[in-house]
């Protein structure tokens, strides 16, 4: 076989690995539930109850036009941890269950295997993004429409936003692959992913808003870069009201996010992926 057919075969094998173990739909169901719940609550609060309270002056003031993007982008601003987790699990499982042995026996070109994993997980990450959008847009727009707000779905900009959300979810999935190659211990990798995304990064992003010079660094944090790529997020909207926030252009945010995936993948390749499989 030549390199191209080898690469396609390796890609088919990676898809086959993903869909022959239950993990992909277990995580997908949790993602759908989590995003649907959050987007629904948010739409109710800001669209319905929030609108009623706005006259009282206590509720957060968000212009009506900003409402749909905030609610729809819950898909990535809250849901991004699922593709990154799935990418990490898919990669560390190879180390944990020693399936790297049959994998490298079938495809001795190890770089090809890692490349195929990147592509396969990007596709699955995009699929996760689509399902997450189905929930956030489906529930969100219904509630917005029911409470007499504009759903924004007639606007081309909204659809362009949705496309960027799918892209962000795809990149998060391959960040997971890179991390998994870098940290082959599954437990350690999961703990690091959860601790960083759910705890450490939100704090860093908040602290970064205190000063100008930290804000310029804060925009390069992966979560911030992801929000910049998407262009709208509950966090940036709230952050803008409280302190210094700087945000990259959408394409720069996307490149920064992609750089995290590539750097982790390259380091992972040269540390764990090329190591002796014993």
């Amino acid at each position: 076989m030549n390199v191209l057919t080898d690469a396609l075969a390796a890609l088919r094998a990676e898809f086959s690995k993903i869909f022959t173990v239950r993990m992909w739909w277990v995580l997908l169901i949790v993602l759908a539930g989590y995003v649907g719940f959050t987007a629904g609550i948010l739409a109710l609060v800001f669209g319905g109850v929030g609108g009623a309270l706005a006259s009282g002056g206590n509720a957060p003031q968000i212009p009506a036009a900003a409402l749909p993007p905030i609610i729809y982008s819950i898909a990535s601003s809250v849901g991004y941890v699922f593709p990154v987790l799935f990418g990490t699990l898919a990669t560390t499982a190879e180390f944990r269950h020693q399936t790297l042995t049959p994998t490298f026996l079938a495809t001795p070109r190890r770089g090809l295997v890692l490349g195929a994993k990147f592509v396969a997980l990007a596709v699955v990450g995009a699929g996760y993004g689509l399902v997450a959008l189905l929930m956030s847009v489906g529930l969100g727009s219904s509630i917005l429409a029911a409470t007499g707000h504009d759903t924004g779905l007639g606007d081309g900009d909204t659809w362009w936003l949705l496309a960027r959300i799918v892209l962000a979810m795809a990149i998060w999935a391959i960040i997971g692959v890179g991390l998994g190659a870098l940290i082959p211990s599954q437990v350690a990798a999961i703990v690091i992913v959860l601790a960083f995304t759910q705890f450490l990064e939100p704090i860093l992003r908040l602290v970064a808003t205190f000063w100008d010079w930290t804000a310029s660094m804060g925009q390069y944090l992966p979560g911030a870069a992801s929000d910049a790529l998407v262009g709208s997020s509950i966090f940036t909207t709230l952050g803008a009201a409280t302190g210094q926030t700087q945000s990259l252009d959408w394409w720069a945010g996307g490149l920064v996010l992609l750089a995290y995936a590539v750097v982790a993948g390259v380091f992972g390749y040269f540390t764990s992926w090329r190591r002796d499989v014993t």
Partner: protein
Amino acid sequence: MSTSTTIEIAGLGKSFGAMRAVDDLSFSVRPGQVTGFLGPNGAGKTTTLRMLLGLVRPTEGTATFGGTEYRNLKDPLATVGTALEASSFHPGRSARNHLRVYARAAGIGMKRVDAVLAQVGIAAFADRRVGGYSLGMRQRLGLAFALLGDPGVLVLDEPVNGLDPEGIKWIRSFLGQLAAEGRTVLVSSHLLSEVQQSVDRVIIISHGSLVYEGGLAELESGPRVLADSPDRAALESALLAAGADVEATAGGLAVTGLTREQVGTIALSAGAVLSLLASEHSGIEQAFLDLVGEGGSL
């Protein structure tokens, strides 16, 4: 089946830090017979096989299939079939899907998956998750993976481990059949008795170095001859005069360094009547233990 090739190990060595796992190892394995790769646990067998398969990078030397390294094989699974220790499965994936994943990676048709599942006798359990498999079933699944590409060369690491007596009987005839089809079959084991009945040739390593390469029969005939005479003292002095090592045992004189024929000739010319002249038949296991030099640990 693809064409069988030889396995060529030349000057192979591997160090893990200060630990010397394999040292200047050279041997070759020919098609059409079952070759046993023996040595105690920790002798470097698995490391050698993993270097041969491109999974572990040799510190020095080469390991090839007829001159081609594993990583450079055009169709690796169709050239070499491999079953390494029985744990390389995702417990949540069924046996059929496990094989399908690697069939896809190697461009092998899905029909072949069903064929090898039937061949190793686990077709009835093929859609069960491997996590629930017994060690014996995992061994069979490992073997199914090895057969996936219908390869001319088979490299099997401890395939008998964990099999029940029926399974052991099955794999013995199976290995013989594979070799009879002209394939190159290399089977590792830490127990000589496990493979004794199924191998034609053995390679024995100890502490990472080759200690024996050749037929089982030569190993068995061994260097010891048992001889005795009513006039044991006369026989002993004649043998000692001929330069042999003689050890008096309860059953007679154990002679090292002479063939049975030579012992008989010396006895005749010394005029000593022989009451016993025999090759030592318990020699094979003993010879193996002597070679690997750590009988107690086996």
